[in-house]
C-alpha cells in the first residue's frame, strides 16, 4: 500500500471531531511550529518539501510564500482557496467534509509562517454543508486554545473565518477570489501587482489551495526532506486524485506521485478498471481544462514510455501528445462516450463561467460553444474544426486570466486527437444523432496512429 499523509485516518470513526483528530496525532504540527520553529523555518521546510500548489497551476508553494512582501505595519493575509469548481475535481470537498481539522491545522501553521493574524477560508457557496463543518471545527479549535489570542501560550494570535462564495467558477482564480472576498463581482485583477504584493484589501496576501495547506501538516510533522522523498523528480509527496467517469470505483485517492496511469485506472487499489466491462476510450487527467488524451496516449507517452501520475510525465509531449496534472481531476471515458458531446459540454461550462470582463473570453467562449453545439446536433460542417482551432488560438494567451486558456485547451486537444470523430458528425449527420462513434482506433497501439 502506498503511503498516506492526508487520508491516513480517513476511516477512523469521529476523525471529523477535534477529540479524535488529536488522539490520532492531530495538531502536533501546530505545537511543533509555534513552539519550536520560527516562521522562516516553517517556510524553509515547505520549500524543502518541493510541495507544488495542488489547485491546478502547480507552482511551488514554498517559493510562493517567499515572495510575500513584508512591509512594516501592514497586515498580511493567508486566504485558502476552497472554491473547488473545476469539473472533475472534488478532493477539497472530500477533505473538508471528512477531515476538516487537517485544513484548520494547516491554516494555523501556514498563517504562522506568513505572519498572518487574520486568515480566511473561501469556500464556494454551494458547499454550505462543508462551510458548516468548518465553522464547527473552527469553534472546536478555538475552544481548545488552538485559535484566537495567544495560541497554546506562544503569544501568536490568529482569527480564522470561513467565507462563502456566491456561485462562480472564476472565483477559483486567486485574484477573482480576492475580489469576491472583498464583496465584489468575481472579476480577475490585472497582474502585476501580484497578491504577494497587493492582495486582499491591498495588503500582501498568499492564496493557497485547500490540499496544499493541508499538506503543510505532514511536512512540518516529518520535515520537508522526508516529504520530498516521496514521488519522482519535481513531483514530490502525495497528491489527492479525484477519479470520476466510467470507472468501477470513483472517488478520492491519495497517491504517491509517480504511480503509472495504467495502474491507477486498472488497479483495485484505485479506480478498479473501466465500469461495466467496457473499453477505455479517453482520459482527462487534471480537470476539464487540461488537454484530453485518447486511451493510447493516456497510458503511454508518444515515446512509448509508461505515463506516470507526475507533473512531468502527464505533461510529456507538450500540447501535441501530452496533458497536465492540473488539479488532479481524473475523468475516464469509456467507449460509449461521445467526445464531441463532451467537448460541447465543457465549452458550455466555460462559456457559462466566463466573467465577461475581457473580450476574447467573453465572446470567444460563446462562439466555441455554439459551433460545438451545431456539430453535436448534426448541423456542423467540415470547416468547423479548423474554425474552432482558430478561435481557440484567438483566446489562448490573450486574456486577463487563465480561464481563456482553460476554455481553449479542451477544444483544441479534442480536435487534435479526435478529429475523425468530429468529422464523422458531419459526414454522418443522422447516424450521429442515434449512435456514438465508439472506440474507433483510439486505443490502438501508438505506432500506426503517429504514422497516419
Amino acid at each position, binding site marked *: 500500500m502506498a503511503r498516506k499523509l492526508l487520508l491516513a485516518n480517513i476511516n477512523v470513526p469521529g476523525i471529523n471531531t477535534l477529540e479524535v483528530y488529536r488522539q490520532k496525532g492531530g495538531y502536533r504540527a501546530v505545537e511543533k511550529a509555534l513552539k519550536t520553529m520560527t516562521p522562516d523555518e516553517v517556510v524553509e521546510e515547505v520549500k524543502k518539501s518541493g510541495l507544488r500548489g495542488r489547485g491546478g497551476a502547480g507552482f511551488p508553494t514554498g517559493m510562493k510564500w517567499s515572495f510575500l512582501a513584508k512591509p512594516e505595519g501592514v497586515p498580511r493575509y493567508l486566504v485558502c482557496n476552497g472554491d473547488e*469548481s473545476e*469539473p472533475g475535481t472534488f478532493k477539497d470537498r472530500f477533505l473538508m467534509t471528512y477531515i476538516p481539522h487537517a485544513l484548520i491545522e494547516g491554516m494555523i501553521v501556514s498563517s504562522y509562517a506568513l505572519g498572518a493574524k487574520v486568515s480566511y477560508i473561501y469556500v464556494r457557496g454551494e458547499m454550505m454543508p462543508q462551510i458548516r463543518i468548518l465553522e464547527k471545527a473552527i469553534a472546536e479549535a478555538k475552544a481548545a486554545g488552538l485559535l484566537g489570542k495567544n495560541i497554546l501560550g506562544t503569544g501568536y494570535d490568529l482569527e480564522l473565518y470561513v*467565507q462563502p462564495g*456566491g456561485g462562480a467558477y472564476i472565483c477559483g482564480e486567486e485574484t477573482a477570489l480576492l475580489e469576491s*472576498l*472583498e*464583496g465584489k463581482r468575481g472579476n480577475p485583477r490585472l497582474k502585476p501587482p501580484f497578491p504577494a504584493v497587493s492582495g486582499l484589501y491591498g495588503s500582501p496576501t498568499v492564496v493557497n489551495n485547500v490540499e496544499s495547506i493541508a499538506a503543510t501538516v505532514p511536512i512540518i510533522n516529518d520535515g520537508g526532506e522526508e516529504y520530498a522523498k516521496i514521488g519522482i523528480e519535481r513531483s514530490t509527496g502525495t497528491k489527492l486524485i*479525484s477519479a470520476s467517469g466510467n470507472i468501477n470505483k470513483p472517488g478520492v485517492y491519495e497517491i504517491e506521485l509517480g504511480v503509472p496511469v495504467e495502474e491507477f485506472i486498472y488497479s483495485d487499489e484505485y479506480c478498479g478498471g473501466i465500469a461495466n466491462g467496457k473499453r477505455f476510450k479517453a482520459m482527462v487527467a487534471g480537470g476539464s481544462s487540461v488537454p484530453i488524451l485518447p486511451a493510447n496516449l493516456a497510458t503511454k507517452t508518444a515515446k512509448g514510455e509508461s505515463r506516470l501520475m507526475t507533473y512531468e510525465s502527464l505533461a510529456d509531449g507538450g500540447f501535441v501528445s501530452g496533458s497536465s496534472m492540473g488539479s488532479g481531476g481524473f475523468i475516464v471515458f469509456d467507449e460509449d462516450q461521445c467526445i464531441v458531446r463532451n467537448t460541447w459540454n465543457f465549452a458550455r461550462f466555460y462559456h457559462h463561467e466566463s466573467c465577461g470582463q475581457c473580450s476574447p473570453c467573453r465572446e470567444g467562449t460563446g462562439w466555441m460553444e455554439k459551433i460545438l453545439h451545431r456539430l453535436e446536433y448534426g448541423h456542423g460542417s467540415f470547416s468547423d474544426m479548423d474554425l474552432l482551432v482558430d478561435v481557440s488560438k484567438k483566446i489562448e494567451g490573450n486574456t486577463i486570466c487563465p480561464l481563456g486558456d482553460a476554455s481553449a485547451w479542451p477544444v483544441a486537444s479534442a480536435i487534435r486527437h479526435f478529429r475523425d470523430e468530429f468529422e464523422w458528425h458531419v459526414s454522418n449527420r443522422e447516424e450521429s444523432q442515434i449512435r456514438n462513434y465508439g472506440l474507433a482506433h483510439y486505443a490502438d497501439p501508438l505506432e500506426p496512429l503517429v504514422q497516419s
Partner: protein
Amino acid sequence: MLSVTQNEPVEFAPTLLAKFADIVGRYPEGRHKSALLPILHEVQAHFGWLSVPAMDQVASYLKLEPIEVYEVATFYTMYFLQPQGKYMLEVCRTGPCCLVGAERIMEHLEDRLGVKEGEVTADGLFSWRGVECLAACGFGPVLQIGPEYTFYENLTEEKVDELLTNLKNNAGSQPLSANS
C-alpha cells in the same frame, strides 16, 4: 431589466440583523463590503429570493450604493432574482456527471414535475435547473437543494422519485437541514 414583482419595503428581523452583525465582525475596520455575499445568502435563506427592496435594504445596511448590490447579485448564480419553488432542485449538468447519467436525471425531473427548467410547479413547491459542476464528480449524478444545500448523490430515477415524495410530505415543515 428586471420586472419588479415585489415592491413592498422589507424589514429585517432582529435575528437576521444579529447574523449580519456577526458577519460584519469578521472583517477589518472599513472592509464591511466583504460581508455582502454572506449577507445576501442569509437574506435569500430567509425570504427565498432577493427582491429589489431586500437588496436595497442590504445596501443601506452596508452603506453601499444599491447598484453595487445588484452588480454582485447578478454576477453569482446562487442568488435568485425571482421567486422560486420552495424546493429548488439543482442538478449538476457538467461533463463528469453526464458520463454517468445526469442528463437522464434532468429529463426525469422535468417529466415528474411537469415544468421546464427554471419554472415553478403550480403548487409552488418545486423548481429545478441544471447547474455547473458541483465538485462531486465521483458521486454523480448529484443534486442539491438550498438554502443549506442539502446534497443527494449517486442519483437514479427511483431515488429522485423517493426524494420528491419525501419533500412533498415534508413540505409543511422546516427547511432541509444540512447533509442528507
